């Protein structure tokens, strides 16, 4: 496609992207550099049905004047980014000086909310993405080999996990793994341990969420792989069969190289999705054992009675950076291939 045609073709999408994705990101970025003004408080008498006390309130007269002058708040630079609830630069330095062994240092760092969330997020990505690719590919290959008559219903059944709303899907599983649910109770019988609870142990909660993630995301990989498999040319496959290649050899040397670009695509999308893991944490009420970066943003925005816009914005920006870093190797490779192809 000539560049000019491409430009006009892309223009509407590009405009929409700037309007609905670009501008909000810029606004979030600006927000992340600001903190609230210093609160001017004053002592007043407060009375309620249970009695009167002397206590403090925010002095609205003085505060509203400051707010009007600078509605965005107090410029804080990277202050929010490096504070204890985010990158915690100062705290990490202190831990490094104070701790005696590396293990102790790691313990201290992973106790910080941002790193705690980052570790869960990365673990989730690391386990879910490859398994989704693998499972999706295996299902696609198997379904491709099934007789056409029953393929339709089978495909529908396979993509069900993707159709079910994530929150509903995780809630269903949450009830099933309850100590009195079908999975939970059977596990207790199987393990002969009446105290076994999937929800109370951190490791088991992580495993549950990861399994849920694989279950939920595999259909996406399957659908794309299945479509790609339809484009595999039959001649080389037939030639390979005549040459006596085994099924594995055919998959390894003909099918995989053919659908390789699609695998990259699915890996990219999957990584991006998994890095933003959020719904299962809410669905499984797993806030106690597993926090992700997206959950931190949610927590700052809704779980506090005071909304922490600066914190939420800073975590959002770092999530974007995190995704960019994760995707960088794949993107660089694609770019290089694109250059050599030209």
């Amino acid at each position, binding site marked *: 496609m000539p560049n000019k045609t491409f430009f006009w073709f892309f223009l509407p999408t590009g405009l929409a992207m700037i309007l609905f994705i670009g501008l909000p990101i810029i606004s979030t970025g600006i927000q992340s550099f600001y903190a609230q003004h210093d609160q001017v408080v004053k002592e*007043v008498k407060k009375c*309620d049905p*249970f009695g009167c006390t002397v206590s403090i309130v925010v002095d609205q007269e003085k505060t509203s004047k400051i707010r009007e002058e600078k509605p965005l708040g107090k410029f804080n630079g990277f202050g*929010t980014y490096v504070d204890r609830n985010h990158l915690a630069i100062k705290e990490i330095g202190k831990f490094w000086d104070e701790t005696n062994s590396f293990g102790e240092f790691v313990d201290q760092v992973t106790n910080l*909310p941002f790193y705690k969330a980052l570790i869960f997020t990365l673990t989730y990505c690391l386990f879910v993405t490859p398994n989704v690719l693998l499972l999706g590919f295996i299902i696609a290959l198997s379904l491709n080999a099934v007789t056409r008559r029953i393929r339709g219903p089978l495909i529908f059944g396979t993509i069900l996990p993707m159709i079910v709303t994530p929150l509903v899907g995780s809630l269903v599983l949450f009830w099933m793994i309850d*100590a009195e649910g079908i999975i939970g109770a059977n596990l207790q019988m199987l393990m002969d341990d009446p105290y076994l609870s999937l929800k109370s142990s951190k490791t088991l909660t992580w495993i549950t969420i990861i399994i849920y993630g694989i279950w939920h995301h595999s259909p996406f990989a399957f659908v794309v792989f299945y479509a790609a498999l339809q484009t595999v040319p039959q001649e080389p496959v037939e030639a390979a069969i005549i040459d006596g290649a085994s099924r594995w050899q055919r998959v390894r040397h003909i099918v995989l190289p053919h659908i390789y670009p699609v695998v990259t695509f699915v890996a990219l999308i999957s990584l991006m999705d998994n890095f933003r893991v959020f719904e299962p944490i809410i669905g499984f009420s797993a806030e106690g054992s597993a926090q992700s970066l997206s959950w931190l943003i949610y927590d700052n925005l809704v*779980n506090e009675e005071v909304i922490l816009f600066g914190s939420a914005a800073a975590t959002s920006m770092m999530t974007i950076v995190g995704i960019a870093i994760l995707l960088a190797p794949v993107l660089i490779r694609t770019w290089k291939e694109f250059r050599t192809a030209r």
Partner: protein
Amino acid sequence: MRETNMKKILISLLLLLFGTSAYADCNIKSGSINILANDFPALRTFVETAKGCKGSADFKVTHSSEHNKIAVPALTANPSEFSARIAANSSIVPLMNQDLIRPLDDLVKKYGKGIQDSQLITIDGKIMAVAFMANTQHLYYREDVLKELGIAVPKTYEEVVAASEKIRASGKMQYPYAAAYKAGWNLAEEFVNMYIGHGGEFFKAGTAQPSINNAKGVATLNMLKKLAGLSNPDYLTHDSEAIKVEWESGNVALMTLWASRSGTLLDDDGDAKITAATKLTGPATVAGGNIPAATLWWDGFTLAKNRSDADAEATFRALAHAAANKKMVADAADQAVWLIEGFKPGPKSIGVIEAVKMKAKPYPMLPQMGLMHGALGSEIVEFLQGKESAEQALKDVEAAYMSKAKEQGFL
């Protein structure tokens, strides 16, 4: 002649029928009323009563358990989406911090007939809210289980622990105790209660500097952990609704729960035997303290600042009608502990009344308290899971709180 008589009878019958609404109608001619409220039976009754007197005003209401998440953004808009917000001690604070609600003095003077002085929430001499019900968390117990094992009704958390251990040892119940320990707001609320029971202060006097990393804080955490050990191992996922279900399935014999939930526990749904044996008592004390390890809460209405005076007036008149309504209080006596004149407490109000008698403290209405509450909800989890010491957990809470308080300009 006869016909006219019939007509007269019909008209008087009609008048009788509509008489109730004519009595309720506060003659509001215009304006629009839109209320945001939490979702539990007493609030529904209250709002319904207010609706009965809406006159020709527009009337809308949103009942949502997610009310906290909507309130500030919705009231910040100008004009505000809601003309009134039913708030409580804690949820009025963000509205005050952001200057989103209006003083009610003039309206109370003009239309507040029947509202008692004790219902008025005044801050710096201005009436900011009108309370209509009180709430607290207190003990519920299974009379049959305690009687069978010869256990006296516990008055302190130490006795709760001992009783629970005895029940467990008897083999009757594996997890005899329950409280809403769900990580986040609920868990933090339990800490706040227990810490106040220990006589703790959250901040250094007159400042926003945290001061919970002390012996009282450690004792609080240790007590919470003991109780957690006697609860269902999934306690970190259990909110009020979940423990209510546990109770109704007969898995629990002792429980700390909101007074406002007693109605649903004592209704005709569920196992009649459990319902009959469910008894209420005051909140427990802890560590030899005099004041209960519980906080007192009020629910009351506030009016949005960013809304026209006409709407505010219409809204106030409707809500004030409910906040001084003796009939509602008599009809719905078992739904809540009403602060309205004419309320005669029934058996479901024991918890709150005991708490008030025992001089329970109200939930701290401080501008920075929400940040402390948030920090508690996430940072003490690892202590309960046995992954860190009580001192470390409290240090984490203080550090997490300080970062947030700095961002919000309190430090």
